[in-house]
């Protein structure tokens, strides 16, 4: 029943994450753009959101270092440590899109609850972007065994 437990854990973590985005008002693209607008109507709130998130995550991750997750056999941490053109190009393109509309992926998903059209359009385009950059559905397990 590990699949049920990891799924419920995902739901819990996602809900807390979404509440955090809503309370910090990072779902409001105007607030995000006002953070990025240093020479205009600057609103530094996002620094406090990032700061609060990093402090809690830093301490929590320290406490969990070397431990075994409750519902999985091991922690899965990114192994890629290379700082290359792909990383900088990708992050730079992401920042351009972020600074254009004021959405990053999480706030756009939580913003779906508003019923507004913007997050729907934005996320549709994000998925097209994923595919343009090479994302494909994983092969079916039976197809893998036939090969």
């Amino acid at each position, binding site marked *: 029943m590990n699949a049920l437990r990891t799924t419920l854990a995902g739901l819990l973590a996602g809900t807390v*994450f979404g*509440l955090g985005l809503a309370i910090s008002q990072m*779902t409001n693209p105007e607030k995000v753009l006002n953070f990025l607008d240093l020479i205009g109507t600057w609103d530094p709130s996002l620094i406090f959101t990032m700061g609060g998130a990093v402090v809690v995550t830093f301490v929590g991750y320290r406490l969990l270092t070397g431990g075994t997750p409750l519902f999985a056999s091991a922690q899965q941490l990114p192994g890629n440590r290379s700082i290359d053109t792909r990383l900088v*190009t990708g*992050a730079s393109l992401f920042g351009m899109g972020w600074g254009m509309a004021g959405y*990053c992926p*999480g706030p756009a998903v939580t913003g779906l609850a508003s019923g507004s059209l913007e997050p729907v359009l934005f996320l549709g*385009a994000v998925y097209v972007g994923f595919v343009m950059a090479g994302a494909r559905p*994983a092969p079916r397990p039976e197809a893998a065994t036939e090969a």
Partner: protein
Amino acid sequence: MTTFTPIAATIGGALIGLAAVLLMWLNGRIAGISGILQGAAFSRGAERSWRLAFVAGLVLGGALYLLVTDGTLLTREGVSPWLIVTAGLLVGVGTRLGSGCTSGHGVCGISRLSPRSLVATLSFMATGFAMTAMLRHVLSVSV
């Protein structure tokens, strides 16, 4: 105009951190939303279901906020749909190439003291500042 709200911003940020710690404690995973969105659509089986549930939770968190408080999530109207779509394409391509976004690199990666995530975060912050400045102050686009 938005007003500076340091207390709500910090409380919300702490909850985002709590969510990242919960996901590591329970499932042993990094809370990187762009990766989770890809896995929710493109992976299979249990790898897919916890990510789908996380995405559903993100929406649920927003809905709970609307239900319990008299606040709003977003109220903007009248921005060109082309601008929104272009931004979405850049975010989709960029987060896949760069293996992460504000959550995966900016929160989780920085908290792991990953040099790779620090470089990514500085890169997207720099182009974010530049893009907003250009749109608002050079091209006079109202966003």
